[in-house]
């Protein structure tokens, strides 16, 4: 005990292996090198296309996510998701020469055809930063939909299509409505917002060389149907969207009746427009789509088939998917060489690239990016999290509902007790350590319970994780980081509004001088550091759909980035929690607050 209390030597520093986790790639304009954004190593790895060898590793910011080149090839731009910045790499010097602040959690990056402007997708701010590449200053910020993810420029350079990972907010208990945001690159404005009904997690996007359409990856999550109801289509189907330049959108599935195509992450079309390659990060495969067959099928079909048959038909993919090519763990970004002979796939959880021969349609080589050989328990858990092997017909993975450990923004009907009963909002896994119990009804005391038999019964419908798997998964989930708070940088003082809001949060007296009962004060149930007492309370939010009236007290850290709110996701914004859903002051005494006081409270909550 004394030794523990008074150590006499420095503790041994843990030497955790440093993985690479390659996510997305870009080919240098001269075609000689591939730059790979590696999330875990905070680097960009350079691979020589000819020799297929790693030739350099360039330190970037934290969590590099996407990379693109300037058209003249002198620069590479890298989004650093954890830092809210873009690194500018001098290609000849192979080093970062500038860092540009952008919006929250930048993801996709791409220049316009001239290279004068750089578009950066701020995934957590639902916006698009437009950067002047001469001054390296942000010129403007365009509004996207929710969680803009990837972008692709039309062959003539006039349009950029942006996929959005999350559905727009929709009315309670209605299906998703997602959006492809269209940028007019001449005017640098949003020209259109193409609606993709019933789809979500739209991620990859690539234009067909004809310039007539682009293809996007998507999920069709049936969150309003109980997850146990296999016969009703079950939970998540996975597929493609074909988005024409005139705004038409057709959806097709890549799932087949025997085995699904979970978590389609990226799509790339060959230069001749003949083939489209789609990565399934949940099943470690690439689907090869015959584009001509797919388009012919769509153009011969009726409106009814476009709307009702193809988006749900598990038999159709056999008509246009030529083959599946196996990869290593969790394939994400795809890059096709301009000669149309070779494709590269970034295997995020294998620290490698798979090289595909596009004539033979086979994986012919693996490029080692230099990650550790050892697979730690956390890494193993990460692979389990991203693998659909645990679900019936490999339909989805943990990542499918918690993309990158966060939220998909949906409210789910999970329980096997009838349609529409006890709908629950999806909760983030970021910073989940020490926030037990789990589940909105607070009935699962540990993650092992949450992810073990319960998962098998209510979600995956096959043999549950083994104890070792469960332990690894638990370990991984507990390491999913919470990004730095954007409303209060580390060490920063509270702003005036935040300071006033803190007083409201901690107040004991109402505006008229009444003493607020202890149980009705914010800080009673939401106290630091997690701002949760980890107890269940009845805050008056029970609806006719709910079995219970008491719900788990959520932690409030980074609460601003996990809308919607309340146990059923009925509140689109933080304000609505109190303006709409606290009529009797059961969720804290708030109805006496003036509008400016409530605004101050919001500003403070966002700093927690």
């Amino acid at each position, binding site marked *: 005990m004394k030794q523990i209390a008074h150590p006499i030597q420095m503790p041994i520093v843990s030497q955790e292996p440093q993985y690479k986790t390659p996510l997305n790639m870009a080919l240098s304009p001269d075609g000689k090198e591939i730059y790979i954004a590696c999330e875990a190593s905070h680097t960009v790895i350079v691979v020589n296309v000819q020799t297929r060898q790693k030739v350099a590793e360039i330190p970037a910011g934290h969590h590099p996510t996407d990379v693109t080149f300037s058209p003249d090839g002198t620069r590479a731009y890298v989004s650093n998701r954890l830092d809210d910045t873009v690194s500018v790499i001098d290609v000849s010097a192979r080093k970062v020469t500038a860092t540009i602040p952008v919006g929250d959690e930048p993801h996709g990056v791409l220049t316009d055809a001239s290279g004068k402007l750089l578009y950066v997708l701020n995934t957590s701010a639902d916006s698009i930063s437009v950067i002047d590449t001469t001054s390296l200053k942000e010129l403007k910020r365009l509004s996207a939909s929710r969680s803009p993810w990837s972008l692709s420029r039309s062959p003539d350079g006039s349009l950029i299509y942006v996929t959005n990972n999350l559905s727009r907010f929709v009315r309670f208990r209605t299906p998703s409505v997602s959006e492809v945001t269209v940028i007019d690159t001449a005017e640098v*404005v*949003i020209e*259109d*917002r193409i609606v993709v009904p019933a789809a979500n997690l739209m991620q990859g996007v690539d234009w067909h060389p004809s310039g007539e359409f682009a293809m996007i990856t998507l999920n069709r999550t049936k969150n309003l149907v109980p997850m146990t109801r296999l016969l009703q289509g079950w939970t998540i189907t996975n597929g493609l969207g074909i988005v024409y330049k005139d705004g038409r959108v057709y959806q097709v599935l890549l799932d087949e009746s025997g085995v699904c195509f979970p978590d389609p992450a990226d799509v790339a079309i060959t230069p001749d427009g003949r083939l489209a390659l789609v990565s399934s990060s949940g099943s470690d495969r690439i689907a090869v789509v015959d584009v001509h067959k797919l388009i012919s099928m769509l153009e011969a079909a009726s409106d009814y088939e476009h709307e009702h048959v193809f988006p749900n038909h598990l038999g159709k993919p056999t008509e246009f998917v030529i083959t599946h090519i196996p990869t290593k763990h969790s394939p994400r970004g795809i890059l096709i060489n301009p000669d149309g002979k070779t494709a590269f796939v970034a295997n995020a959880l294998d620290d490698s690239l798979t090289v595909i021969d596009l004539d033979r349609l086979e994986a012919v080589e693996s490029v080692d990016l230099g990650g550790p050989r050892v697979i730690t328990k956390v890494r193993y858990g990460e692979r389990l999290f991203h693998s659909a092997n645990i679900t019936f017909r490999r339909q989805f993975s943990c990542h499918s509902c918690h993309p990158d450990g966060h939220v998909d923004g949906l409210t789910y009907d999970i329980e096997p007790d009838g349609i529409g009963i006890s709908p629950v909002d999806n909760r983030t896994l970021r910073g989940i350590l020490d926030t037990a119990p789990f589940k909105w009804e607070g009935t699962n005391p540990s993650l092992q319970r949450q992810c073990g038999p319960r998962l098998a019964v209510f979600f995956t419908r096959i043999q549950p994780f083994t104890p070792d798997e469960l332990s690894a998964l638990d370990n991984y989930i507990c390491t999913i980081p919470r990004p730095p708070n954007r409303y209060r940088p580390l060490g920063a003082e509270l702003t005036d509004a935040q300071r006033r809001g803190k007083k409201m949060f901690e107040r004991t007296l109402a505006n008229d001088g009444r003493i607020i009962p202890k149980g009705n004060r914010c800080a009673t149930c939401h106290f630091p550091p997690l701002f949760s007492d980890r107890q269940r309370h009845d805050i008056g939010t029970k609806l006719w759909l709910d079995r219970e009236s008491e719900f788990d007290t959520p932690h409030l850290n980074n609460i601003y980035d996990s809308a919607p709110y309340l146990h059923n996701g009925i509140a689109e914004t933080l304000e609505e929690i109190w303006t709409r859903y606290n009529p009797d002051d059961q969720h804290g005494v708030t109805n006496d607050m003036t509008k400016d006081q409530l*605004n101050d409270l919001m500003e403070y909550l966002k700093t927690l």
Partner: protein
Amino acid sequence: MKHFITALEILIVLWLGETALCQAKDTTAQEKLPYVYTEWKHFTVKNGLPNDHVFAIKADGSKVWVGTENGLACIDKRTGKIKSWKEKDGLPWRVVSALDVNPKTGELWVGMFGGGLARFSGGRFDHWHQLNSGLVNDVVYGVAIENDNIWAATTAGASRYNTVTGEWTIYTEKNSPMEEIWNYGVSYNDGKVYLGIWGSGVLEFDVATERWKDYLDPDGEMEIDLYRDDGIVHVITTGTSYIDGILWVSTYFGMNRYDGRYWRGYYQHETGLPSDFGNAVQGRNANEAWFATDKGLGVLADFPSDTWITYTMDPNTRRGKAVVSREKKLLEVVDMPKSIPHNYALWVEFDDNDTWVGTSKGVGWATGSGYYKGLKARPAYKAGNVRTKTGGSDAHAAKK
């Protein structure tokens, strides 16, 4: 080559002769007068407007956005076609009372009377109101874009929304010199936000310093001006417009011009204002401002000479009239087939040389081909003479 030079010489001689002739004409027969808009086109429900009660207009390139009592409309200037949106089309609220376009992003911001604030971008409406956001009140009278911030003038104070950080700031009597909180209008230009407030005059917000300055009626709340040009004419202020360092103000009891040091008051009885009841004002430059009143449009066309143009519509004949005057002296009367669509004018919008006017009976589009600032020597007309505009050519061309 020789022939070419000879021809050039002849042309030069002819041009010099013509110029000399014109100059002679100027000195004898021309008087310095303002430009008068004589080419008017009307848009009403018959042309496709969703409603004839027009509260706001915003020109943006080839598009002209129109806010009405029951819907939003967009006039395509090139084709004259109108597209409109009502609640069934996704417009969050029927009454569109204010409009502004973010010059950086091209997004249209929509203030709605009872419905809060909306952004229209790429065909999608996003909606902020007092329940789902920090907007202080849903009765929005005015909207203005200031850098990355959106200002909303509401019946319960002003809101400022930062589109980058998402922060809402409310300005009321608690944190600004706002004696009353009923904000009628808001405008932004050159680093300054101006609020026109019912009962609290004009408030100026300096964006750089975030400091407020108030402009109140030195005569108190009297409906007469005891000492002229001593300040704002009345605290019931409906509109503000700041341009070239000049603040223009409309109130229910007269109008104002303020150059940072001196105030000037304008009243119906001594100017070309058709009424003292001002609904809105737009300054075009330091010397020209258009006042929308309940009895027509009053245009101070040239501040130094105090030259006014009064545009009205004859309710019986539906014909239009423009009266040019200086210190109540009648200089010119132009009779036109059309002028403003209705004398109850609610909004004015400049669009390069053109001007758009919102009234309670549709939109008037005045084409300004040949528009000039201030005054210009052109053939003089005796006071009281009526110039009749009959055809499609403009008044100035008709005179030649």
